[in-house]
């Protein structure tokens, strides 16, 4: 059985990386991801992993080295945050296009300016269209668990896609919590030995990666990538189910919390879901029929699951921790409303932008969101589709 101990999210992920023991890690430090990479570098220095740790001069090089190592035939991991992810940008897309099963932890942080090191989801939401699978984590335990599941999912022969595992910067990355580590051997047994696919270093079977690909076949290649992403939801669930058998911790693409008989729901991602569960309990005690839908898997977006979970509700308030600046609400709102458009029965849906740059979200804020959506349903009409929570006036 595993070990119960106190770790923050960064250390939890560093331990997951140690237990995965990847062939290559290439990373550059950035707050709030830094102490994850520092911890992992200690494991390398102490000889507790066999990993080739590549200290690069920027995140662009970090992801480039990851792409090279993964194309070469290695199991590869990295970690970053915010501006680091932004600097990786072009190579992030290339990693997905080459179908390289790289696993990257992102400690969510505001993408400046002004300079802000605290949590929002603007970094990974910007990368939502890059072709990576995205798993969000509510706490340190989930960040750890998601990393281990991500290896299995990414490397599945029918997936072969990179996976981004996020945790809220500082809120989770720097908060010490009680959690459980699996045994090293259990993790190794769960992920299995790395299986190469068309490795560049197989000199007897030479392959080409990333050649010129113009109007003759580029579209078909993109179609095959689109098709792969669209079909990996069952594999993500299968990997999660197998992890559940091992750990006793069961994960779904979406987690429904007290939604079964609910009239009003809130949708959120990351650490806010924990606070929202407490808010739901408090409102339930006051007789309100409310629930939470937690989005764990944001990419690919589990459209059918969203419809099934939300259709019976009267009203839904989406909590978005990033802005699309001129778009119709935040990214989660966009997806959720679009998913519900053709549903025979659908709730009224409103959006709240909250928590930018680490602005705290309290149970009282979530209660306000519930009150607002209840008001909208009573009125039968949405006057303000997109509003703000916790914004000073």
């Amino acid at each position, binding site marked *: 059985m595993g070990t119960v101990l*106190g770790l923050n999210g960064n250390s939890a992920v560093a331990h997951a990386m140690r237990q995965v023991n990847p062939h290559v890690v290439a990373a550059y430090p950035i707050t709030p991801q830094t102490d994850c990479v520092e911890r992992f570098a200690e494991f390398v220095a102490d000889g507790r992993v066999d990993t080739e740790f590549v200290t690069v001069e920027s995140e662009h090089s970090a992801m480039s080295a990851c792409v090279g190592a993964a194309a070469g035939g290695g199991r590869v991991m990295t970690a970053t945050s915010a501006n680091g992810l932004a600097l990786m940008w072009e190579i992030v897309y290339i990693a997905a296009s080459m179908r390289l099963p790289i696993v990257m932890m992102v400690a969510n942080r505001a993408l400046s300016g002004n300079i802000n090191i605290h949590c929002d989801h603007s970094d990974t939401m910007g990368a939502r269209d890059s072709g990576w699978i995205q798993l969000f984590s509510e706490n340190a335990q989930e960040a750890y668990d998601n990393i281990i599941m991500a290896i299995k999912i990414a490397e599945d022969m029918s997936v072969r896609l990179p996976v981004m595992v996020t945790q809220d910067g500082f809120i989770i990355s720097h*908060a*010490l*919590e009680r959690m459980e580590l699996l045994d090293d051997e259990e993790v190794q047994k769960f992920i299995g030995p790395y299986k190469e696919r068309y490795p560049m270093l197989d000199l007897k079977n030479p392959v080409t990666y990333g050649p010129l690909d113009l109007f003759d076949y580029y579209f078909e290649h993109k179609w095959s990538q689109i098709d792969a992403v669209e079909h990996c939801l069952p594999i993500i669930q299968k990997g999660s189910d197998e992890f559940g058998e091992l750990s006793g911790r069961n994960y779904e693409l979406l987690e429904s919390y007290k939604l079964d008989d609910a009239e009003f729901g809130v949708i959120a991602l990351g*650490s806010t879901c924990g606070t929202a569960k*407490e808010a739901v309990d408090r409102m339930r005690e006051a007789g309100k029929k409310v629930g939470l839908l937690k989005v764990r898997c944001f990419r690919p977006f589990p459209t059918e699951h969203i419809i099934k979970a939300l259709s019976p509700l009267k009203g839904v308030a989406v909590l978005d921790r990033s802005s699309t600046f001129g778009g119709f609400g935040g990214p989660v709102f966009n997806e959720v409303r679009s998913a519900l458009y053709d549903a025979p029965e659908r709730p009224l849906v409103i959006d709240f932008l909250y928590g930018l740059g680490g602005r*705290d*979200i*309290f149970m009282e804020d979530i209660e306000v969101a519930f009150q607002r959506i209840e008001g909208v349903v009573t009125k039968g009409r949405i006057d303000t589709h997109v509003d703000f929570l916790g914004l000073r006036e």
Partner: protein
Amino acid sequence: MQKLIEIRWHGRGGQGVVTASRILAEAMLKEGKYFQAFPEYGPERMGAPVKAFNRVNDKPIRIHCGVTHPDLVIVIDPTLLGTIDVLEGMKEGGTLVANYDGSPKELRELLGFNTGKVFTLNASLISREVLGRVMANTPMLGGVCRAFDQISLKSASEALRAQFGEKLRPEIIEKNLTCLKRAYEEAQQG
């Protein structure tokens, strides 16, 4: 079953406020509890007022927002008493544990605090006598054990050993344990 208890630490940058909250979390682990420990991250300046937080419960803790209404407030630096509002948002019947060279009665008068519980101990003096320098965070942990019956002195001692085991020489760890014990014994309630 105990309910959720929220704790706020006050000190200054460089006084080991965050370390103290981590050792307390480690002690909570040894008591078989669920816990959180997290600092308030702002500009990091030596000597500036800083805060750190703990939560403890017998069941998993799900909330991840900041602590605004603490049950227990711990003040590591005596110069903060009367300087900043260390009692801000404190729950009714809450407990204050402070590094202070006077009696609980005197501290109550200084802060105008007439409810709840107050524990005082001269953590600066204890650390100066035992360690040879002022490092009030470990004695304050002893004070916390006195004020908060869910954490035993034994668990705190083991947690301190676990935290400092690889970083400090054995004789320094022993001195820190002496600080812890002396603080536990010398803390006054009133």
